[in-house]
């Protein structure tokens, strides 16, 4: 199983990034091999549709699970089409979130927000 997490820095001690589409990197963590792979988020600086483009990266890296603090509706619809399970991450380090997920302490993300749709850039 492969877990995807938006992260601030390329380290397991990094905090989870509170933004999905604008996160600088994504961690892809392979549960079986315990391998960590950090990928630059090519959507971080796009003018629009960041959530959609970031979701494409998650899909293309064949993640099965995504841990996020919040998520917009467009990104969610891409991930759902790829059957990726979305869990509510805590505002804490990557390591803590991975541990909590393994211990079954994270629940599925319930609230999908309507998205920012470029509003941050105006």
């Amino acid at each position, binding site marked *: 199983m492969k877990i995807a997490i938006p992260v601030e820095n390329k380290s397991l001690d990094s905090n989870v990034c509170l933004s999905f589409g604008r996160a600088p990197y994504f961690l892809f963590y392979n549960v079986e091999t315990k391998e960590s792979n950090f990928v630059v988020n090519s*959507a971080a600086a796009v*003018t*629009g549709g960041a959530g*959609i483009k970031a*979701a*494409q990266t998650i*899909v293309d890296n064949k993640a099965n699970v995504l841990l996020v603090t919040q998520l917009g509706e467009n990104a969610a619809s*891409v991930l759902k089409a*790829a059957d990726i399970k979305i869990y509510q991450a805590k505002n804490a380090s990557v390591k803590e979130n991975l541990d909590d997920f393994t211990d079954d302490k994270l629940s599925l993300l319930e609230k999908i927000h309507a998205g920012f*749709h470029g509003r941050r850039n105006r």
Partner: protein
Amino acid sequence: MLDFMVEGTGNMKIAVLSGKGGTGKTLVSVNLAAVSKEATYIDCDVEEANGHLFFKPQWIEKEDIAVKIPQVDKKLCDGCRNCVNFCKFNALVYVNDELKIFDEICHSCGGCILVCPQKALTEKDKIIGIIKKGISDNVTIYTGVLNTGEPSGVPIINKLLSEKNLKENKLTVIDCPPGSSCVVMESIKDADYCILVAEPTLFGVHNLKMVYQLVKLFDKPFGVVLNKCLKEDNPAEKYCLENDIKILSKIPFDNELGTLNSNGEIVANKDEKYKKIFSSLLNKLVKEVQNEAVVNP
């Protein structure tokens, strides 16, 4: 209806704009059209069109406005992702061996269709709003309405300002959306002259600066109408004087005017003193535009 309508406007096109909403764009636009012998009033504030509330026109035409968005023939798509990579707005994704299109993100550039080697993408219409045409006494009214949730009113404004609506030999008043974004640029691009409406506050100066920069960038002749003028110092007036900006008119902060206007009345049709404000403004505009034609033919 009072007498002495302003004549001799030719087919001049006046755009009325301001840096924020509520400064008096619609007050100025509606009343300018009302004091002209014959006029076309075009409401380009398609997210919140309200000029028709004053004219209460009889609507005579209605037209749906559509943009082109892509649709995919899944049998032809081979998953090359050229379209996904091309789209600068990220309106397309490729998931589970299927192309997925986000209609509301698409800006209708048509690029995805051009780059598809399989010819799997074609255009389809998506209705984003309507345009209505109405008549009220001496004024022909065009109103654009953008559907809720649509990202851009530009296609509707473009249609509102199409040649057939502008070509007649009479005054055209273009009531712009607030601010200085794409929709405002689209609204002023064919105008002969721009009126900047400003409030007598520091915030008003900030908003005036935005539209002042815009009309300079577009190289449009322009002047300012100071609205809601009080006896006290007027920062917007000070800004105009300091920057050598022409002040066309000062509309007083007036309880009676405010009451009439908020009741949806056209103040120039209700009281001679208001009619005078707007007819002298229109006469001034006629001269300004004529001068401009001589200086910059």
